């Protein structure tokens, strides 16, 4: 009895000798509530007050559905592309020493720092049909700016540092010895990379993917400049929310926001779940 009770109580007791568990947990919960939960709850409350019929009518509005589809599909594509190039960039930064490495390392963080609108305008200038790269692609029939492709380009630019910065430290930890061990066992360079190094990076890559995806779904500033914002073609959901707000159609705005919130939450939850599973599976935690 006693042991059962103490085991049950253990979860609520300070689990380590370091004091302040109650204080910090309380602070975290209060903070999250004020900053995130209350605004989101207000959102859900507002859209719930519409009633089911209105809610479904607004969700199933073709323009809304198109905008949601564009937002999530471009974010997904951009996140996948970022995983590939982010891992390559992290590899270069971790494994090789070349002149200007520190500068490249710093450049990776720039998308964090510059206003996203600036990034969007700069990308538009380059990828517009009369721009530096756009003019080269135009004869090939490839239109980047003012199309969904432009949205993907903008989201790649914005999301890259998330992948690089999550993968880089883990890659740094993989010791040279592990690669040498694989080589001494007869593995080719290719086998070493695909069977030893990349699987070891899976949890970090998933984290980077989730962050880049989340950022891509919510991105607004850079996209509206390059997308052209043509309804049903290149209009993203966040922009549609703003448009509805400007029309004083608060109901529609909250409905779009709520649907985005639900889908995003489900996706992130799924990724977190896979990540936790792979971390356990790969023995990072016991």
């Amino acid at each position, binding site marked *: 009895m006693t042991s059962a009770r103490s085991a049950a109580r253990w979860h609520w007791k300070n689990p380590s000798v370091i004091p302040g568990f109650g204080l910090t947990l309380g602070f975290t919960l209060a903070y999250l509530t004020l900053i995130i939960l209350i605004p989101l709850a207000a959102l859900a409350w507002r859209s719930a007050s519409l009633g089911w019929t209105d809610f479904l009518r607004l969700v199933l509005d073709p323009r809304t559905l198109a905008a949601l589809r564009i937002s999530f599909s471009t974010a997904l594509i951009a996140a996948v592309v970022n995983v590939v190039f982010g891992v390559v960039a992290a590899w270069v930064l971790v494994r090789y020493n070349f002149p200007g490495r520190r500068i490249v390392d710093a450049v990776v963080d720039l998308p964090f720092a510059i206003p996203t609108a600036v990034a969007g305008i700069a990308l538009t200038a380059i990828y517009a049909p009369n721009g530096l790269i756009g003019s080269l692609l135009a004869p090939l029939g490839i239109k980047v700016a003012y199309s969904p492709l432009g949205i993907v380009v903008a989201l790649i630019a914005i999301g890259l540092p998330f992948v690089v910065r999550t993968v880089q430290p883990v890659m740094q930890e993989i010791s040279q*010895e592990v690669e040498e061990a694989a080589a001494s066992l007869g593995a080719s360079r290719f086998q070493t990379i695909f069977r030893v190094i990349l699987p070891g990076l899976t949890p970090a890559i998933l984290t980077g993917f989730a962050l880049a995806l989340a950022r891509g779904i919510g991105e607004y500033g850079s996209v509206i400049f390059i997308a052209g914002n043509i309804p049903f073609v290149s209009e993203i959901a966040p922009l549609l929310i703003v448009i509805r707000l400007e029309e004083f159609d608060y109901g529609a705005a909250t409905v779009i926001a709520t649907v985005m919130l639900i889908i995003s939450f489900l996706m992130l939850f799924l990724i977190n779940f896979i990540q936790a599973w792979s971390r356990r599976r790969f023995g990072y935690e*016991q």
Partner: protein
Amino acid sequence: MEIRVEKIRKEFDLYPALHDVSLKIESGELIALLGPSGSGKTTLLRLIAGLEQPTQGRIFFGNEDASYRSVQERNVGFVFQHYALFRHMSVLDNVAFGLKVRPKGQRPPKAEIRRRALELLDMVQLTGLEKRFPNQLSGGQRQRVALARAMAIEPKVLLLDEPFGALDAKVRKELRRWLREFHDRTGHTTVFVTHDQEEALELADRVVVMSQGKIEQVGSSDDVYDRPNSPFVFSFIGESANLPVRVEGGVVHFHGAPTGLTAQRDGEARLFFRPQDVALIEEGPGMTGPVTSSRRLAGTRIAEIELGSSQEPCHVEIEVPLEAAASNGSILSFRPTRWKLFY
């Protein structure tokens, strides 16, 4: 598989790590590369494995020149100091890795790979742990997984880099004995690097003592301990004391006084002896001085004696019988019974 290292030279950024090292390792031998850090012992091991390329010189496996073969082609089993296990693979997958990455024609069927991996795990006494991940094992178990993994490719040679360096003393002793048995059973040519002389002397058929990128001495444990061929080996292996002496007319003099020891060649030299190879004497020529400290060590007593003048004192430690009067300040005279001069 016999290994011959011929005049190997290795430079890192123009700093030489090995100077023209030559070594012959007999087939089936268990050999230790022993030396302080920076002596080049790990570099030599990595050169044999093919993890480094020599600046000059050649390495033969049997009669074949393996100098420019890649590490994949050399078919050596290498065990790393920090195990270098693949932490995203189970123990079984770790051991099976070397077989799974073989090109299609040479790869055994899946069931056969599994059977062999399980057999190896049995050999390293880890039966039942095949589903675990490396993080769920103790240090000693991880090291044995690393060994089983290296053995899976049926290597011609087994190379171990500080195999017990990261383990605690008790596990280290167990694994040491276990490795000796393992070697005797499988008969692989085995080379291991260590900085622990006790480990090298206890485990190896022959010990290669290295210092500053050179081989100082190669020999059995008895050779390097009882017949060291250089001042470095004498002071590196075991306890020793050394004194500046002068040989005049065939008699060894310390500080102008005869010591009762004789030598063939005259001149300045250093006298080396081990603390236990001395005899206390009542009279006659010897070395005399006050005891500055003494401590009990298991069955004996170690006394530190101050020799020479008070301006430039030399301190030596010698073993004295428990019943000898060796309190601080008492004067003791002794003479080395086994000793060696290096001119």
